[in-house]
């Protein structure tokens, strides 16, 4: 299971392993400095040479670790690692399990355990060289317990604490029983203290209690923090999964929309040819070009021709709607000056308006240039003006106004027509929807014109809104982003 875009679980451990190595450079420098300062401080008993040797070994050891860390990402093979692996898994904090990447996490945990153990050995040597049970370095054992609790499981932390404690006990009892030499810090230091059972015992108990208490406290906090990290990680994975599902669903929707629109276009296109021929043939007959026509035949042919015309208008509008929908899908865009375009549309429609005695008013002074498909935008403007003319009674007017503001171009087409009832306002942009008063007032009309307008406006990153007062008039407002 891989989760792209998300750092692997082991990265947390890896980061700390690197940090741990950096700390050790400081420790080595500290040890060397302490050895150097011993004379100045009057710690005459301190064996400077061996302590410097410890500092040197620490540097060599840390250099080795530095290179090993870089290689840990590579999966080791061999029987040795196989047995180490099962032990390593005990050391991995439980919260890191079940998140994938486990073998890598186990390698880093094992690596941390080995490091802390070797550090304890260094620390024990340092302890031995600096006064044994009375050495001020004893408190450094606590640091390693803290580090172990951050990196390892609770079990691992106790195990690590025990390793440190046993090493400490080895030094204390070794010196007590005379198995190890004693290196007093200086002559003033009670030289016999390491030989006192009560001092050795008390020292052990106090340090043991400190180590185990520290390991309990730290691992409790660490487990709690790691639980939260785990919860966050699981949550973010869940969110990523949901996001992917949403994206997939959206893509499916887009695809089906595209298919629907292509299908619609194909069907409309197939219908258009034969319908056009029917219309033309009927017109030829109706206009007497194929011989004389008597009354009833003329009437029937006239009806057929009118109905064929209606059907042709629907297929034409369906085709326009499909084209408008697909226009957003990668059509080339050019700058379109709306003032000129509006003036042309108004001139084209002026004869229709005049024949109906509807005044056409134009105010294109506001200018406005948009980026888009000029054929589609012309269609949008023409549909709105045509609509205005269609639903305005003789003597009324249709006014088209162009304004530019805030980087947008606004076209308002306002008529003094029959208006739209409030309950119809939200539906006038639906496909095939015609308001009741519109159907009553004008028989012709496909119910697709405003749907086409809406698709075109939206495909150009704009929108279309409508306001109306039934009986007084309607105003459509198209807002398109201006071309910069």
């Amino acid at each position, binding site marked *: 299971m891989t989760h792209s875009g998300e750092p692997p679980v082991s990265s947390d451990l890896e980061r700390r392993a690197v940090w741990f190595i950096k700390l050790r450079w400081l420790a080595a420098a500290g040890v060397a400095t302490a050895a150097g300062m011993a004379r100045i401080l009057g710690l005459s008993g301190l064996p400077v040479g061996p302590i410097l040797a410890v500092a040197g070994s620490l540097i060599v050891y840390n250099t080795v670790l530095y290179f090993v860390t870089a290689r840990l990402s590579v999966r080791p093979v061999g029987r040795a690692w196989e047995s180490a692996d099962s032990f390593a898994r005990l050391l991995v904090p439980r919260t890191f399990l079940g998140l994938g990447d486990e073998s890598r996490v186990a390698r880093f945990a094992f690596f941390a355990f080995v490091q802390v153990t070797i550090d304890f050995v260094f620390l024990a040597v340092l302890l031995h060289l600096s006064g044994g049970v009375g050495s001020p370095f004893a408190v450094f054992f606590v640091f390693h317990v803290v580090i172990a609790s951050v990196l390892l499981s609770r079990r691992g932390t106790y195990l690590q604490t025990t390793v440190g404690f046993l090493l400490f006990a080895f030094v204390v009892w070794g010196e007590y029983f005379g198995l190890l030499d004693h290196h007093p810090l200086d002559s003033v230091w009670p030289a016999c203290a390491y030989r006192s059972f009560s001092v050795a015992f008390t020292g052990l108990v106090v340090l043991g209690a400190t180590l185990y208490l520290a390991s309990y406290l730290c691992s409790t906090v660490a487990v709690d923090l790691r639980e939260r990290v785990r919860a966050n990680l699981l949550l973010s994975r869940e969110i990523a999964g949901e996001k992917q599902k949403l994206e997939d669903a959206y893509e499916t929707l887009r695809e089906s929309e595209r298919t629907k629109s292509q299908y619609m276009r194909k069907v409309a296109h197939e219908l258009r040819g034969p319908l056009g021929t029917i219309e033309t043939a009927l017109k030829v007959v109706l206009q007497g070009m*194929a011989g004389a026509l008597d009354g009833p035949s003329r009437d029937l042919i006239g009806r057929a021709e009118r109905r064929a015309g209606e059907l042709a208008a629907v297929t034409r509008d369906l085709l326009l709607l499909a084209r408008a929908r697909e226009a957003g899908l990668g059509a080339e865009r050019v700058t379109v000056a709306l003032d000129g375009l509006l003036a042309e549309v108004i001139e084209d429609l002026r004869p229709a308006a005049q024949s109906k005695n509807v005044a056409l008013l134009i105010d294109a002074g506001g200018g406005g240039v948009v980026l888009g498909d000029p054929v589609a935008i012309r269609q949008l403007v023409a549909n709105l003006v045509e609509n205005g003319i269609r639903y305005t009674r003789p003597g009324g007017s249709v006014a088209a106004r162009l304004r530019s503001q805030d980087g947008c171009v606004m076209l308002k087409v306002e008529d003094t027509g029959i208006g739209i009832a409030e309950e119809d306002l939200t539906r006038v942009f639906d496909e095939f929807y015609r308001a009741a008063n519109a159907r009553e007032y004008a028989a012709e009309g496909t119910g697709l014109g405003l749907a086409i307008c809406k698709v075109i406006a939206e495909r150009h990153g704009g929108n279309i809104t409508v306001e109306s007062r039934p009986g007084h008039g309607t105003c459509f407002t198209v807002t398109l982003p201006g071309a910069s």
Partner: protein
Amino acid sequence: MPSRAKILIVDDDKDLVVALRFALEREGYQVASAHDLTVGLEAASAERPDCIVLDIMMPHATEGFHFVWRLRQQDEAYFRNVPIIVLSAIHERTDLRFYPDSSDGTYQAGEFLPVQDFVDKPIDPALLLERIDRALRLKPPA
């Protein structure tokens, strides 16, 4: 004079050709027809029509375009001048924009199409007659 003029209809819709033939013959025109590009070019050479009425969307989508260019490319002045009226929903004011697109690379959207007139489909026969009459009147003398 127009009554004896010869009109070539290049359109794959045979029913439409029949209907248009009635309308044109009634006005006294002689009518020839062709159902595709190749037959159309042959008919243009053989019949030397005074005007060509041309559909664009023939079997191969934009065959009408190829017809225009191949006809106009011929050396003889007749082929460069014979008026062509395109039967298609091209709007004169908009640039040439066709559906389907120009992806076959033989022409560019917006490229000038060397024809005399456009009549939108569905065709109003009276309007077509008017446009043919105009094209013949505007035709440069041979």
